[in-house]
């Protein structure tokens, strides 16, 4: 890895280390005692929020049980799905369509509506060639906000289940949703969007601008159509909210989404900041920074080691090109490495760092094409998703997943010493364990079930790049992405077919709601329990030992589930040369 590639990673960790604690404490205050105590910003936000609650017809002071919270989330997701679906189908006859895009097909619109409502932002389509500016703005950008806010709301509700004792309610979904948008996402997105524009990300309301290329006569390209559109506003929230859906097909590899090293760095920060800050907020809410530190250390350890695999493997280059007279070495004059699918301004290390961030969270934006990664370079992000995206995971859902793994870890530790397991004074019993198993099984079932069915279908096989280990990697990666609500792709495969749009749509729904609902139910079950006093026999959950135990649980659960498939895909591919 180049020295600057290494330093860039160090600088990212430092930037996060400086900003995340205060952001986390701010988040805790946003979700904390809520409307009963006064908060910085209340003068601005409270009147707006009160008006919104009145329009919604909800009483902000009335809290919901876990089931009510879940029903609100489901109702909201359903309405969002219908709105985005109808918008895409009708975009051809709706206004603000300067690029003149027609309506989207039923299966395609289904897939995209599910994709953006579930915070996945899987894109079977090419952004600039399929979606009208109206759809991008009032459809997709809006979902980037609300699906992220819904995920954060759920995590907070689960934390309340742990914090409160002998209660019954987990908060009010509409209040948590609204406050996340007004006090967290909108201000951050507006600032980030402007910073991105300063680097060259476009932000206008035009269609394309025709220019006359300098060498047009010789190349026969008499004109080039430079795209326009409200790009920065969408890119900002796509990074902050673990969304990842690009304005353009090439996503953050496109110069208009990610033009400079600084823009790239700001985006990386934005991908990781809120998921990590939520862990800090968790520490504040449970009243123990050490609990949060253990989880942060687990997340950082997994995230950094898997990022390093891709950074190193991509910098090492593609062995298949070495014998063709290609210079892949790193020097003062070139960044070198495997540059197929990568931009010069975001070389192997820059891109490997991003790959780790985007798959460790559920972001899914890419600054280079993952399908062209070396076998090991592609293995790491695939594994990162298969771990359930808990390092640090998507906004809200990542922390939620990590808490489920933590509960599983105390359960296993409890079995080993023969004590009823407890987590922060709450007994973990049969009811919780059943829900945890449901949570753990849902994602792999959707991933492996559909992937297995896919490789048996001749039509799917024919659409793969090659009928070998790499083809299997493509199937695995793409279902891992859908089932984990990630959105990045091994994009050689045309996933616009009816098979893919339908099955991946279902996988995304499973990956969202079959995880969120059990997690809320766990919160609902824990909130009723009284806190048991800490004794000498209590297994401490704020120690490095417990951190190690969580890493072990995460790795073993994913390893037992996915190793056979990975062995036939990227691992065989690596040894094929």
């Amino acid at each position, binding site marked *: 890895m180049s020295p600057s590639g290494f330093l*860039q990673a160090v*600088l990212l960790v430092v930037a996060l280390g400086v900003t995340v604690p205060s952001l986390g404490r701010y988040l805790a205050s946003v979700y904390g005692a809520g409307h009963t105590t006064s908060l910085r910003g209340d003068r601005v936000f409270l009147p707006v929020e009160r008006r*919104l609650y009145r329009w919604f*017809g909800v009483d902000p002071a009335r809290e919901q049980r876990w089931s*009510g919270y879940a029903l*609100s989330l489901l109702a*909201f997701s359903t*309405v*969002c799905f219908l*709105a985005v679906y109808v918008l895409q189908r009708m975009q051809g006859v709706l206004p603000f369509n300067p690029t003149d895009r027609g309506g989207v097909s039923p299966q395609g619109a289904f897939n995209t509506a599910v994709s953006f409502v579930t915070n996945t932002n899987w894109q079977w389509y*090419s952004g600039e060639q399929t979606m009208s500016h109206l759809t991008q703005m009032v459809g997709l*950008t*809006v979902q980037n*906000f*609300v699906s992220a806010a819904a995920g954060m709301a759920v995590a907070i509700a689960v934390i309340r289940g742990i914090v409160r004792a002998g209660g019954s309610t987990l908060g009010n979904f509409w209040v948590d949703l609204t406050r996340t948008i007004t006090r967290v996402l*909108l201000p951050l997105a*507006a600032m980030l*969007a*402007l910073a991105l*524009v300063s680097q*060259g990300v*476009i*932000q*206008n309301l035009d269609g394309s*601008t025709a*220019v006359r*290329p*300098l*060498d047009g006569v010789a190349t026969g390209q008499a004109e*080039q*159509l*430079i*795209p*326009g559109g*409200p790009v*920065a*506003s969408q890119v900002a*929230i796509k990074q902050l909210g673990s969304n990842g859906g690009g304005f353009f097909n090439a996503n953050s590899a496109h110069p208009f989404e990610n033009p*400079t*090293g600084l823009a*790239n760095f700001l985006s990386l920060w934005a991908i990781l900041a809120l998921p990590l800050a939520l862990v800090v907020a968790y520490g504040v809410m449970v009243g123990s920074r050490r609990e949060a530190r253990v989880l942060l250390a687990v997340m950082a350890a997994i995230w950094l080691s898997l990022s390093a695999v891709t950074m190193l493997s991509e910098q090492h280059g593609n062995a*298949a090109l070495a014998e*063709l*007279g*290609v*210079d*892949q070495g790193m020097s*003062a*004059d*070139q960044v070198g*490495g495997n540059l*197929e699918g990568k931009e010069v301004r975001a070389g192997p290390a*820059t891109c490997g760092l991003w790959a780790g961030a985007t798959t460790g969270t559920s972001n899914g934006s890419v600054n280079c*094409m993952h399908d062209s990664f*070396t*076998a090991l370079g592609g293995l790491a992000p695939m594994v990162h998703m298969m771990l359930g995206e808990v390092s640090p995971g998507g906004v809200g859902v990542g922390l939620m997943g990590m808490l489920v793994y933590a509960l599983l870890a105390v359960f296993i530790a409890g079995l080993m010493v023969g004590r009823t397991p407890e987590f922060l004074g709450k007994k973990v019993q049969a009811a919780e364990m059943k829900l945890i198993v449901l949570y753990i099984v849902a994602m792999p079932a959707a991933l492996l079930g559909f992937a297995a069915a896919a490789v048996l279908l001749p039509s799917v096989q024919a659409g793969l*790049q*090659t009928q070998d280990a*790499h083809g299997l990697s493509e199937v695995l990666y793409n279902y891992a992405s859908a089932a984990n609500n990630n959105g990045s792709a091994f*994009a050689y495969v045309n996933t616009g077919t009816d098979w893919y749009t339908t099955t991946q749509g279902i996988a995304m729904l499973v990956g969202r709601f079959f995880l969120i609902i059990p997690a809320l139910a766990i919160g609902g079950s824990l909130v009723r329990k009284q806190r048991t006093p800490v004794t000498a026999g209590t297994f401490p959950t704020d120690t490095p030992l417990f951190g190690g135990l969580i890493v072990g649980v995460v790795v073993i659960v994913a390893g037992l589930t996915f190793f056979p498939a990975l062995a036939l895909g990227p691992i065989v591919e690596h040894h094929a040369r």
Partner: protein
Amino acid sequence: MNGFVRQLRPAAVALAAFTLVCGVAYPLAVTVLAQLVFADEANGSLRSVDGRPVGSELIGQQFESPRYFHPRPSSAGDGYDAGASAGSNLGPNNPALAQAVAERVASYRTINGLSDDVPVPVDAVTSSGSGLDPHISLANARLQAPRVAAARGMEVDDVLVLVEQAVDGRHMFVLGDPGVNVLVLNLLLDEAD
């Protein structure tokens, strides 16, 4: 089920309200501010010659004449189609990739008058992620400089000075990776002529 139906009204109103706030007010406010403060960047960093826009500094374009520096291979449409950003997505072991690279290596050496044992910089023979990469590596530019100088009747050293001027370095010395902006460089060449 009852609870679900009762929640549909707040759901619909909330979506409508957030559509106005996040889907209309937010992008419009950002657009207004961006157009006020960073008008050039917000509109695509366009460059003009004699008042006619010739391209965006950030979007690569095709060059084939010997008197211009050439960009990287592109998988966007028929090459540098700014309306169809795309990478090749070819896997590392795909024979199609090896074949394409081998052909590009041969043609790069022919065009630039290099012997068969000169290693070719990897960026010159691989296609970028967007297909619109505006940059090439410094190594790539150095190998093209003699050809460009000859075609223009310039000294190679003078061309190399312009190459250095067109380098976009790392931000704060570590962020991102450096490259030579091809359009900027070719505009500098035309000016110098």
